[in-house]
Structure formats: structure tokens, C-alpha cells
């Protein structure tokens, strides 16, 4: 008996419509639809798409919790051995939806799952360390390439076979180093890599260095007594009650709050939203993370010019680098526009 596969796709690949149909609510159809036919061909009888879950990209992203629950139920009702999502190629919201569904299938349904997308799809960064994502080309023209890889990995996962290294299976590197045997010995690969490097041709390093996003330090402040200082933290300090509901991990936003009237942060008015460390000491006295009290003291003593009236805060815990970058840029822009020359960033 062939393995049962349930396939998740969006409204576009189901040939329902483009952007104008992106609010299409989840629907289950028996059998393969659209790209599912290519998957079926690639399964070569070992597996078969028994059902397809279709959901509009806007609908999914705007009704995340409800849409996810409905999609999961449809998938689980079809009793699959393995689930395939997409591929989403370079469609951003579709990629995020595929990643979200795949991660939920893995974590909540405990089923093997494969998705696929282009490496620059925002869903790739968000989910490549959580689920297997086959790296695809940036448009649907890459389907012919992607289908056999997704099909082969899906079958292996469904059968519980050993999964090879990313370079062998075609999934995006997921932070876990896996050994395998190359076709050539290391020295030969090194000589070829060097020849490509010398000729200015593309080559792929076998071990990408951990990403260093080093920023050259700004010039030293020489006149601290007349400099206004801004406070920024990834330690999750928020006004009591967390009015903007900044998430305790994987924060989707940052907050901007007025501290102009505070001499000292106390348990009565501030707390932390951070879920990655023991919050007791930060909740007792938020100055421990966001040092308003000492800065006010220095302001009075004339050591610093003043404190920027708003502080910026988010939760660093598990927050995607891409999101953190976006928040940093927005915060930096406001500070620059306000002519602020110095900021203290605290982390936890």
C-alpha cells in the first residue's frame, strides 16, 4: 500500500485566483490538486496525495490561530503518513503559511512534514531550523526541480529512514551538522574551490562561518554632560500589564513608552515580558534591566545631558534576526531624526 500524503497549497496554486482570492477560507479536497500532480509523479507509486488542503494566503495570515486550527484538523482527519506544504517559491506570505503549517504538523500532530521555498522567502529564515525546507528556485518554473527532492525526502521521513546531510537531500541547512561522504576527497574539493575563488566564479563553502553582523563603533562621545541618552532594551521591560502584548518569545513587535515622568522604575509600574529568563528580579525592580534610576541620578549630577523621553523595548528571546534588524532600523531612525547621539542598549 502506498503512503498517504496530504498536501497544503494556497489559493493561487489551487487555481482559484490571485490576490483577489487571497482571503479564501480553508477547504479540503480529495486527491491531488495543481502541484500535487507533480508530486504524485515524483512519488512513483510509493506514495500518493490523498487529499489537498487549500487556504488563501491573506486568510491564513490574518486569522492565524483559527486558520491554523482548521487546517490542522483537515490534515489530521485525512490520516496522512506524511504532509507536504507548498513549495512556496518566492511568495512571502505563502512561505510563512507553509512554514507555520509545517511546524504545527510536526509539533502538534507529530507527523513528518516537508515544505519547500526559495532561500530568500521570509518563511525560510523563520522556519528552516524547525522543519525540513527544500531549497527551490524563485519561481514556479522550479517545480520540476523541487518535486523530486520534496517527494524523496517525504518518503524517507514517512518510512523513518535516516536523513542525510542538507547537501545530499536538498534541504536548507538547519543548524545541525550531519556527516556524509562526498564524491571527492577533501583536498581535491579544496583545490577546486580555490580555483573557482581565484577565477571569481561562484563556490559554496562547506562550513559557513557563524554570521557576524559587526557594526563599527561610533565615535566616542566627548561631551557627555550635554548629551541626551536614549534607553533601548531586548530585556522585555514594559509598563505594568504589557499594554501592547509584546510576546514572551519570538516577539513580533517592539514597544515605545514614555519614561519622562519616571525617576525610578518599580514593581508597581514596570515589569518584564521576557520569557527566557527568571523574571523575579526584573519584576522586583525593572531598573536592573533598564537603568532609569542611575541615569536620572547622573542627569541631576550633570554628568549626562538628559534621558530621551521614550524608551524602546522588545523581547530578544527567540526573536528572528530579521525581525530584530527591522526593529533596530526603526528605532535608530527615530533616534537619528530626533538628533540623539547616544543610546544604551541592554540585553539579558
Amino acid at each position, binding site marked *: 500500500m502506498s503512503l498517504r500524503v496530504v498536501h497544503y497549497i494556497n489559493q493561487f496554486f489551487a487555481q482559484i485566483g490571485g490576490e483577489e482570492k487571497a482571503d479564501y477560507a480553508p477547504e479540503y479536497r480529495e486527491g491531488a490538486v495543481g502541484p500535487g500532480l507533480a508530486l504524485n509523479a515524483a512519488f512513483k507509486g510509493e506514495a500518493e496525495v490523498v487529499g489537498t488542503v487549500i487556504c488563501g494566503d491573506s486568510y491564513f495570515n490574518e486569522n492565524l490561530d483559527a486558520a491554523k486550527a482548521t487546517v490542522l484538523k483537515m490534515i489530521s482527519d485525512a490520516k496522512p503518513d506524511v504532509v507536504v506544504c507548498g513549495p512556496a517559491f518566492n511568495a512571502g506570505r505563502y512561505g510563512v503559511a507553509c512554514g507555520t503549517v509545517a511546524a504545527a504538523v510536526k509539533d502538534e500532530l507529530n507527523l513528518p512534514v516537508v515544505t519547500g521555498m526559495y532561500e530568500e522567502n521570509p518563511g525560510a529564515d523563520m522556519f528552516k531550523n524547525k522543519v525540513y525546507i527544500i531549497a527551490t528556485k524563485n519561481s514556479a518554473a522550479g517545480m520540476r526541480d523541487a518535486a523530486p527532492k520534496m517527494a524523496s525526502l517525504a518518503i524517507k521521513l514517512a518510512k523513518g529512514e535516516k536523513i542525510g546531510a542538507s547537501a545530499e537531500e536538498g534541504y536548507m541547512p538547519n543548524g545541525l551538522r*550531519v556527516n*556524509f561522504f*562526498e564524491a571527492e576527497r*577533501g583536498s581535491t574539493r579544496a*583545490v577546486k574551490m580555490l580555483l573557482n575563488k581565484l577565477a571569481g566564479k561562484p563556490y559554496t563553502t562547506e562550513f559557513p562561518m557563524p554570521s557576524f553582523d559587526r557594526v563599527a563603533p561610533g565615535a566616542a562621545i566627548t561631551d557627555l554632560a550635554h548629551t541626551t541618552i536614549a534607553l533601548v532594551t531586548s530585556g522585555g521591560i514594559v509598563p505594568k500589564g504589557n499594554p501592547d502584548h509584546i510576546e514572551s518569545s519570538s516577539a513580533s513587535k517592539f514597544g515605545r513608552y514614555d519614561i519622562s515622568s519616571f525617576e525610578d522604575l518599580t514593581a508597581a509600574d514596570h515589569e518584564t515580558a521576557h520569557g527566557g529568563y527568571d523574571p523575579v528580579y526584573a519584576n522586583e525592580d525593572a531598573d536592573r534591566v533598564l537603568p532609569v534610576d542611575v541615569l536620572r541620578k547622573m542627569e541631576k549630577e550633570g554628568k549626562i545631558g538628559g534621558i530621551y523621553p521614550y524608551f524602546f523595548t522588545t523581547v530578544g528571546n527567540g526573536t528572528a534576526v530579521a525581525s530584530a534588524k527591522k526593529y533596530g532600523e526603526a528605532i535608530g531612525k527615530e533616534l537619528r531624526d530626533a538628533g540623539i547621539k547616544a543610546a544604551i542598549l541592554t540585553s539579558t
Partner: protein
Amino acid sequence: MRLELGEIHISDIKLGDCSKVENGTLYVNVEELRALLLEDEDLASVDFEVVHPGESVRIIPVKDVIEPRVKVEGSGGVFPGMISKVTTVGSGKTHVLKGCAVVTTGKVVGFQEGIIDMTGPGAEYTPFSKLNNLVMICEPKEGIKQHQHEHAIRMAGLKAAAYLGALGKDVTPDETKVYETSGVMSGKEKYPDLPRVGYVLMLQSQGLLHDTYVYGVDMKKSMPTILNPTETMDGAILSGNCVSACDKNTTYHHLNNPVIHDLLEQHGKTLNFVGVIITNENVYLADKERSSDWSTKLAQFLELDGALVSQEGFGNPDTDLIMNCKKLEAAGIKTVIITDEYAGRDGASQSLADADPAADAVVTGGNANMVIHLPKMDKVIGHPEAANIIAGGFDGALEADGSITAELQVITGATNEMGFNKLSAR
């Protein structure tokens, strides 16, 4: 320089009462060889075993692996500065007993390491499972110090390899390979349009059990210098390194340095292989700075366009590796480095102890922390209990049934950083 390597293919080793090479079989008179080796006052006993590919045999702990060679024509003798005089080698004609090796075993220190399995899953990870090996179990006299012990076993291996190599002196080689290198000027004239490539060969040189010798000189006491590639084929570089089984360069690796062979293969075709810069991996930080400065300076002196850097060991050599890479790249020399990884058993940890964005072209010999199960072998040569205490083994590694569960780093040569193997990781 021009060196002819005459390869005599050895398909079997037999112990007997006459030492000779005949029809591809190496016959060894063990009494004669034993007497030669026991001239060393520090050795109490030497025993011999022959193992063949595919046999159910485990050798543990392995100290060094050495290929028998002999100088037939040209100046100097093999293993200069140790066995022969210090005369410069690398030209003329050398005979090699291909397909066999001397493997030295014996417990040097309490945590000695290194496994060669001749069959099974472990055999796939070590190149030495494919050779006919003369295993020498060397036991020292009571009461000698660790450094004397290391010296005695090292010398025994080299003496034996030279003794066996000499048996091939008058034998007609099955195959002859010619390696020809150019001088700095003549190479430039001959290959004006080819990129000038050099090889920065990092040698372990930190101290006891971590040393490498070049023409007999302890490399930690030397400044980086330049070798002609063919010198290594006559044993100019010898291993005194007992630690890091998976990523130490045995003498066999130095004799058959794959980077040198692959660069010579491309020499005059796609690149101009200018020379080998040997450098050390010292403990003192100022030495690291000086040596990496010097290897880069020599590379600039040779006007290299590109360089390959190979490493030995893990931990602080990562710092030397990254320093070399950073400085070469900063000097405008395009660089590729070869290393291996300690990414944890799950592969999730940081692979190197040092890193830099300049290292944007890396070849890896695999994750040494990967856990491997080595089934029981019918025969164990050496000290099987060493499995429990070798690096990468862990308590309970040696199961009651004789099988071993351990990290890949216990296997000799498994993640070699000269790129000797096909193993890699992503």
C-alpha cells in the same frame, strides 16, 4: 626539483625468517627486525602482528602509521634528521612499498587514543583499513618518562619503515610517478598566465605528544619556512603527535600529503604550484601572531595569488588557522582552509573554537563528535580497555560484548584536515 616515485604494490605481508619483497609480498624476518629495534634501551619488548583489509581486527591505541620508503637515487635518505642525515631530500628516485604500512601501538599515556578497525563501519572512516599493516606492539621499560616513551615508539616506527623500505631498493616498481616542481623564477616564466598557488601546511607543535619534526627539528622551535613539495615525499616531515586521533597528521599522511599531490596534479595545467609554507601551532600567543605574520609574509614574498591552508588538531589550532586565513586574505591572497568540526553529538554546537568572516571558503572533514557504534571484532591488538579512556570515548564505551560506542574522534585519521578523506558535513 624532480622526484620519481617508484611504487611497488604490496598485496600481502608474511612473517618468516628472511626479509625480502617478492611478487608483491613483503616477507619480514621478525627476529632480525626485533633485534634492530631493541637496540633502543628504552624498549622492553616489540611484538609483531600482520593484519589485512577486511579482517575482523581492531588495533587500539594507534600511535603512528608510516609507509616504508627508500631513497634509490639522489641526495639524502628517507626520514632525514631522524633516520638519515639532514641532507636535503626530494629529488632523484624513491621507492615506495605501496599498499602497506607500519602501525605502532602501545600505551604511551593513560588516555592514549586511536582506533583502526580493519572491517565494519569503523573501517569506512579510516584510510588505514585498506592497507596491509605490520602492527608493532611496543612496550617500554619500567620507569621511563612519558617523553622517553613517546620518543622510543616514534623511533621504532621510523626504523622499521626504513628497514622495510630498503627491501624495495632493488625491486622493479610496478608503477612510476614523476613529480616535477619549478623554481620561483622559472615557474613564472613557464606559466606566466596561471594563478600562483601556495600551500600553508600547519603542523602541530605544542609540546609533549603534540610535536612534529622537520628534518629532525622540533617545529615549535622553528620559524615558518618554505619546503619544496617533493621533500615531504621523502619524509622531511615526521609526526610525533599522539593526541587527536581523528585529526592528527600521521607520518603516512605527511608522506602522501593529498593537498600536495592534488596541487602537483594541477601544476602547469590550471595553476602554478609555487611551494609549501610550513608553519607551527604553538601555545604562546606571541608565537601564533609571529608565525601567522611570517607565513603570510612568505606567501607575499612568493607573490602568491591563492593559498590552501590545512590544519592539525582542534581548539587552539583553530586560532592559528583563523589568523593565517585572515592575514592571507588581508594581503589579497585568495584562501581556502581545510578543517574539521566539533559540533557536538547532535551537530548543533559551534563547530570551531574561533571564526572570522574572512574564512569564506572552508572544506570540512566532518563532525568529530558524531557517535559511532563499532561492533565487536574477533581479535583486538593492543589495549582494548583503552577504549574507555580515549578521547571521545565515554564511560561505558566498551560494552561487555566487546563493541564500542564512541565519538568518531577515536578513529585514526577519520576527520583528517589535509582533506585525505571523502568524509564531510553540512
